[in-house]
């Protein structure tokens, strides 16, 4: 083409980034890679090809790690861990800083290698992935430096097994490795089989950054290797990937005592209100669903547009789609690169072709004849029932519908099993800031999308997983309390007896559901005997239906989460007041049940109520210092409905100490009372009734922990389960929770309830929601 012809046509020409340095690095390893274990590359074993999805050509051979490789990697990490922790925060900060600097100096090599291996446009790997990865190491060098003074009482977990996806290979590595290393852990990381190369390059670079041998180990291979890492003797498993695999990992780690964080799939809503800057909202979608070919867990993939502007918005959107450029990812003028693998391409195609609903618009962008490409696609006019509105497509396919009111927008947005991210476009600050807290999502972007930073926590709710990455909040996922844990919790057996009833008049101890005393559905009760064999009364035996009713009552009391902290504090103080008025009666009851310590337990319960009344209006969240003009608010929200199996040992304190933090933070509770000593809990109903606790906020059941635990754990409308039961229930609860991936906290140690452990309860009783609010006018 002559210059004159281009002058007339004004086309974009080719602007290729050279692949030669990246290919030279691969060649320098002979085109074959072993694993990186104990500071050195192993000899390549059985290998598989990793390919450039834009061309289908093989780039290198990568080793399928064996069980022996994983064992050696874990052993190396184990051996290196004390030394790494012992290096101290400042020593680790220097190493993390060196990694960040090296990443920066080699940024183009990383970017090109990432694009070759993954198929993402060079613009994204160069301007987004690699800079964010650098930023993560810089930022966490700071946390390492500050750990000793700012996180007193926290210790590293030990060896962390980490399994990461192929959509942001280096960035997800940074999100996993940087916090783990900063807090003094060592890691065994498995990159995705499609995209191992940048992890291996980073391993290469770790040696230059002075990372001690064994601190970072990389094992490559497919899902089987991932399973080996999950099953290995590690203290922590961290996974980013699909919800299906996350669920399997939850089941596999159940009862093992391994800490677990999961960052899973999403079907994130992208809400456009009629007063939005529509052109900017259209452009936002380019960053939401056509970023990284839509292969983004938090992609704004579900478009919800207010009816009055829907036609205009869709017209503008289609026009914008037509100017997207799809093709060679190494070309600097490409917006959309290749789908990571033909297998993924086939999945996207199958999902889209299976649907005949709605209006489909496929952007008229020329598509390369060779390679794994999918055109930008918009499907409007779908109903929430359409599978495309519910299932994660993980490709450049946007689906949508319309809404009429803000309330309907929230309802549609939350009509999903996922809860990773959400985007809201409106020029009305009242509207935007009202909607953000109502969305079931771990991250909300207002008038923007897909904003990330090391200082701002990221993670999901519901089946998008649990745990946060980034910020101070993310560090909790890589530390544990430094204090030596208490003795193992041993099962507490109820007393038996044959004595006479103590009460002068027979009393019926029912269940407490929705603010009312209810008879057990099954019509069974159990005799409760004192230590000396006296008959103290009969406790109802709740069954699965009673539990179902209690959960329904709890979920009907949702508005509790919207009351002010001040109002919740008032009620907690009122509870203390009314308990205090009956202190002697409760002390006698406890003495009767357990034979000891009644007065002390009542006193400790009163202190606990005061303590959580104090906290109710003091969990503030924070504004994260993300480098942009705006605020990123890391807000603490209630988890929702929490089911608790209370401590068997302390009939009143065990109940109060779990209930108080939960309701102080705005949660509703279903409490299963101490199984051997249930009658203090049943006496407590009257205290609840006289203290203005709204019906449904606290529900109390009595009965068998072993029988109720699996029902609680598998209930899909409970958001968290805590167990302080003396029964060994960790496995059943953690495995059962995989259904809706609810948060679980199973205590296997004898907790001293008189020693405050507030931070643990605040963390368990709240979810961190990060709300990004860019601002500026002018």
């Amino acid at each position, binding site marked *: 083409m002559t210059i004159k012809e281009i002058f007339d046509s004004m086309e974009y020409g080719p602007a290729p980034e050279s692949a030669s340095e990246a290919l030279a690095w691969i060649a320098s390893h002979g085109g074959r890679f072993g694993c990186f274990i104990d500071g050195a590359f192993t000899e390549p074993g059985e290998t598989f090809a990793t390919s450039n999805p834009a061309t289908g050509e093989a780039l290198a051979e990568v080793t399928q790690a064996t069980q022996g490789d994983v064992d050696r990697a874990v052993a190396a990490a184990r051996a290196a861990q004390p030394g790494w922790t012992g290096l101290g925060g400042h020593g680790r900060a220097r190493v993390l800083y060196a990694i960040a600097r090296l990443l920066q100096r080699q940024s183009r090599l990383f970017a090109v290698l990432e694009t070759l291996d993954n198929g993402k446009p060079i613009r994204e790997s160069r301007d987004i992935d690699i800079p964010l990865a650098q930023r993560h190491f810089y930022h966490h060098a700071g946390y390492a430096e500050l750990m000793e003074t700012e996180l007193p009482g926290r210790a590293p977990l030990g060896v962390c097994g980490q399994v990461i996806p192929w959509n942001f290979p280096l960035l997800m590595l940074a999100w996993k490795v940087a916090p783990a290393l900063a807090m003094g852990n060592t890691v065994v990381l498995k990159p995705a089989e499609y995209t191992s190369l940048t992890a291996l390059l980073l391993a290469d670079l770790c040696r230059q950054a002075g990372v001690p041998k064994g601190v970072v180990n990389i094992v490559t291979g497919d899902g089987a290797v991932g399973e080996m890492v999950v099953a290995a003797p590690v203290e922590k498993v961290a996974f980013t990937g699909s919800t299906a695999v996350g669920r399997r990992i939850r089941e596999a780690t159940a009862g093992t005592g391994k800490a677990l964080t999961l960052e899973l799939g999403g079907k994130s809503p992208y809400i456009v209100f009629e007063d939005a800057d529509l052109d900017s909202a259209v*452009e936002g979608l380019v960053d939401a669903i056509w970023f990284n070919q839509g292969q983004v867990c938090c992609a704004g993939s579900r478009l919800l547009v207010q009816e009055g502007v829907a036609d205009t918005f869709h017209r503008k959107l289609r026009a914008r789609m037509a100017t997207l450029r799809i093709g060679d990812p190494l070309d600097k003028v490409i917006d959309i690169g290749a789908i990571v693998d033909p297998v993924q391409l086939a999945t996207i195609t199958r999902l889209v072709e299976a649907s005949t609903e709605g209006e489909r618009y496929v952007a008229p962008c020329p598509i390369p004849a060779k390679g794994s490409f999918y055109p930008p696609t918009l499907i409007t006019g779908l109903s929430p029932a359409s599978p495309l509105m519910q299932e994660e497509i993980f490709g450049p396919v946007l689906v949508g519908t319309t809404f009429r009111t803000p309330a309907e927008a929230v309802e549609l947005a939350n009509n999903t099993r996922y809860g990773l991210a959400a985007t809201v476009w409106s*020029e009305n600050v009242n509207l935007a800031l009202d909607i953000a807290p109502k969305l079931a999502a771990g991250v909300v972007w207002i008038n923007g999308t897909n904003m990330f930073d090391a200082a701002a926590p990221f993670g999901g709710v519901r089946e998008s997983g649990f745990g946060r990455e980034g910020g101070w909040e993310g560090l909790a996922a890589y530390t544990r309390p430094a204090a030596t844990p208490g003795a193992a919790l041993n099962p507490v057996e109820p007393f038996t007896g044959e004595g006479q009833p103590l009460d002068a008049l027979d009393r019926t101890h029912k269940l407490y559901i929705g603010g009312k005393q209810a008879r057990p559905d099954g019509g069974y009760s159990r005799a409760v005997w004192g230590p000396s064999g006296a008959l103290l009364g009969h406790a109802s035996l709740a069954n699965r239906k009673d539990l179902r009713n209690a959960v329904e009552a709890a979920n009907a009391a949702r508005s509790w989460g919207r009351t002010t902290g001040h109002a919740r504090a008032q009620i907690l103080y009122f509870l203390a007041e009314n308990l205090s008025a009956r202190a002697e009666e409760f002390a006698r009851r406890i003495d009767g049940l357990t034979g000891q310590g009644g007065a002390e337990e009542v006193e400790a319960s009163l202190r606990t109520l005061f303590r959580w009344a104090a906290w109710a209006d003091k969990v503030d969240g924070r504004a994260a210092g993300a480098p942009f003009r705006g605020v990123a608010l890391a807000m603490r929200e209630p988890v929702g409905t929490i089911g608790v199996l209370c401590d068997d040992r302390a009939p009143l304190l065990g109940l109060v100490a779990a209930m108080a933090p939960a309701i102080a933070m705005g949660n509703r509770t279903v409490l299963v009372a101490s199984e051997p000593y249930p009658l203090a809990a049943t006496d407590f109903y009257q205290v609840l009734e006289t203290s203005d606790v709204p019906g449904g906020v606290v529900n109390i059941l009595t009965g068998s922990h072993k029988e109720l635990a699996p029902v609680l754990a598998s209930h899909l409308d409970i958001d968290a389960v805590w167990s302080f039961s003396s029964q060994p229930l960790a496995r059943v609860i953690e495995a059962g929770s995989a259904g809706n991936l609810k948060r679980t906290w199973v205590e296997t140690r004898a907790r001293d309830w008189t020693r405050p452990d507030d931070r643990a309860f605040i963390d368990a009783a709240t979810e961190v929601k990060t709300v990004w609010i860019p601002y500026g*006018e002018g």
Partner: protein
Amino acid sequence: MQIDRAQTLAPAALHEPRNPGLPLDLDWVRRVQANTSAIERRAATLPGRRSVKKDWQAAWLCRAISVIDLTTLSGDDTEGRVRRLCAKARQPVSPEILETLGMTGLTVGAVCVYHDMVPAAVAALRGTDLPVAAVSTGFPAGLSPFHLRIQEIRESVAAGAREIDIVISRRHVLTGNWQALYDEMREMREACGEAHVKAILATGELGTLRNVARASLVCMMGGADFIKTSTGKESVNATLPVTLTMIRAIRDYHDATGIRVGYKPAGGISKAKDALNHLALVKDELGDRWLRPDLLRFGASSLLGDIERQLEHHVTGAYSASWRHALA
């Protein structure tokens, strides 16, 4: 080939129907939104998304030249200075370089001067198709008596200016007096007669991008043929966010009326790279049709020098020096 060149290289060869304007639609004006952060993000990522290399870069830079309103707006302008500028407008790049590029005959889009310099410019450009644009209406502040501003337009037209760059009363925007802005625009358009009118918004003085978007729309409703960012005298002139805001307004106006209004960023585009970024943004947001001199102008004085150096580099492979290129 001769005909082809005449169509594509001569500035005024394509003719859009002029913008007749619309009745003032205040509902529409108030509906207009412009989210500053989002607009800035789009503008900030554009240079990373779009670049042109090699022959494409040379061709795009020639395109940039073809839409330049080569400008001198200084208190010390003289007829001699204006004649020199006009000579540069006719031959913006050395004939040898243009020959090598196959772009012989390339000119800038127009010459832009103060009213008093119009006759000199018209005389100097005689025999070409290059129009003379005059900044009228009490440029740059636009605060002289209204009747004098209107009279200035008429005199500039009478003196041979085929394009009139008017300045709007910023106070009408800042006080939300859209009716007054509309009426002013209407009257000025009327006074221009057959001459095309470019409305200078002085975006650096409008406070917000939202105001820029609304003022753009009102001026188009008032019949502006072009909307233009700046006088070049404000402290902030044509920026990518402002360009994005204004061209989106032009797009909305086109969607509603079918009328294409032109766009002129002015001031601040002094490097070849700035010009390429603006071309890419206009191409992606408005479409290729707006990349012609009848719908796009760059108000610039020093831009041409940088482009000349880039073009020589393209031809020779060696980096150039400014003194190798003829002064304006």
